[in-house]
């Protein structure tokens, strides 16, 4: 479990407070979506959780260990996939052995399965990879490391359209049962089908922190015509009329979550959800 307790943070050399008093608990065995516009503190939060940044106030506890101490046992259970990554100048075999030394649950089977799913050869020359391919290799290594917590910063940035769907497939098929994945992104559409829990950040504040099930239990997302807008909480015009978000009444069928619409409703209109 990750406990974020009254965290205050501003970057060294900057007076802008990214967080003043952030409190959040992240449960185990979930895929969390950390959503927000650019510059809202998503990556900062991931770095704080990983102990790569120091809080100015409060603390972050991962499985009982304060991350500011950068305890090796805690680091063994956390893996972060940054937005951009440079591969070390090594062969795939060396890359595997470098990670095997540190992560006792590292699985070569998972690695090669992920690479196969990403349509990358296991004998690939790491020096000749494009940015997207590097990301795929690194995500495969991250999943193969078998850590309890996997933090991904904008994982779909730099991936082409087919690769984005491959990404969802790879995560769904290869994540461990006891694994918690936190995906930070502003490209909400890329990840909406895979999330269990959503956290929306805006200017260091939490606008939403709830499960996707809870949202779809209370709200419907559907296309409507201009004359059918009763009970609509938020709408956006589309080619088919309006795409709407409305409170779900008893008897209404459950609809699929439209994360982009929800995100816009929260960040543009500042709608408060009744959950």
């Amino acid at each position, binding site marked *: 479990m990750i406990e974020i307790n009254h965290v205050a943070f501003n*970057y*060294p*050399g*900057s007076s802008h407070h990214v967080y003043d008093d952030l409190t959040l608990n992240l449960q185990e065995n979930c895929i969390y979506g950390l959503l927000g516009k650019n510059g809202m503190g998503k990556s900062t939060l991931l*770095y704080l959780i*990983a*102990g*790569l*940044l*120091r809080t100015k106030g409060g603390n972050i506890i991962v499985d009982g260990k304060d991350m500011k101490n*950068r*305890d*090796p*046992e805690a*680091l*063994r259970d*956390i*893996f*972060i996939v*940054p937005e*951009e*990554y*440079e591969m*070390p*100048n*090594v062969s795939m075999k*060396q890359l595997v052995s*470098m990670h095997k*030394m*540190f*992560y006792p649950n590292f699985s070569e089977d998972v690695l090669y399965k992920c690479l196969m799913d990403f349509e990358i050869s296991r004998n690939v020359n790491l020096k000749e990879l494009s940015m997207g391919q590097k990301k795929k290799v690194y995500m495969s290594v991250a999943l193969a490391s078998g850590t309890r917590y996997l933090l991904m910063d904008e994982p779909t940035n730099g991936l082409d359209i087919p690769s984005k769907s491959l990404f969802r497939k790879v995560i769904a098929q290869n994540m461990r049962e006891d694994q918690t994945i936190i995906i930070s992104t502003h490209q909400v559409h890329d990840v909406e089908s895979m999330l269990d829990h959503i956290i929306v950040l805006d200017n260091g504040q939490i606008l939403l922190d709830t499960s996707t099930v809870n949202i779809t239990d209370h709200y419907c997302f559907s296309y409507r015509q201009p004359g059918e807008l009763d009970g609509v909480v938020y709408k956006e015009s589309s080619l088919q009329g309006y795409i709407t978000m409305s409170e779900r009444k008893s008897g209404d069928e459950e609809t699929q979550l439209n994360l982009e619409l929800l995100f816009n409703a929260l960040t543009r209109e500042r709608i408060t959800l009744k959950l």
Partner: protein
Amino acid sequence: MIDFNIHRFRNVAEWSLINSKGTLIKKFFGIYFTLFFFMMFFSRVGGDGDVVPVLTTVMGSVFLVISGGAIVGNMKTKQQRISYMMLPGSTLEKFAANYLMVTVGSILLLAVGIVAADVSQWLLNSAIDRTVSNSYIIDALWHSNSNLVIKGDRMTLGEAILILYFWGHSLYMVGGALIRKHACLVTTAIIFAVTTCLSIVAVWIGGKLCDYGYAVYFYDSALTNILTDLGFFVVILFNYYLSYRIMGRIQVINNKWINL
């Protein structure tokens, strides 16, 4: 709490070595080509072969001392910092691995560079003209100076060199850990400025003491030597500890010019 596990340390050191391969190769070729150029120049153009050992010693010493500035050399970019800081090892293990790299690693690099440059110049000179070919290393070993041996109650040249090396190296380690950009250059400038200021102050105080009728003596006894050694030892340890603490406080994103 001191957290040091020898198995993890070995892994961290191995990881660090693999990741620093490119930098080490660049440094090696830097040393090799510089020394090779000077050896060739003085053997063929300059004519005075005695300059080479002196020049090699000076350049090697400078290299060894300022290599302390690379104590966090494998954490220069944001991605490098993420990779190294996320390694499941304690800060002490990571610091020790980097320390080995900037001490033993630098010494080995320098030694291999000197040998490679010497062998290369010897082979090339032999190929060009057998009469001027000789190995500078063999010559230097043949005429080695016994003053470098530490003995008796006097502070010998070897002892002084060792102390100065570790002291300078530890200062560069603090500078390297503390200063984010151009650490070696800034550290050199700071050391130069501080040394100049302290020298001026020392001369001024000495002059004032003489003006008041005091005599200034420099005692050269076993006790003063031991106290001097001890003083330097404490300062060196303090500098190492300082650079370790600074390394532990490095953050992945920092807009300041120092790592605090």
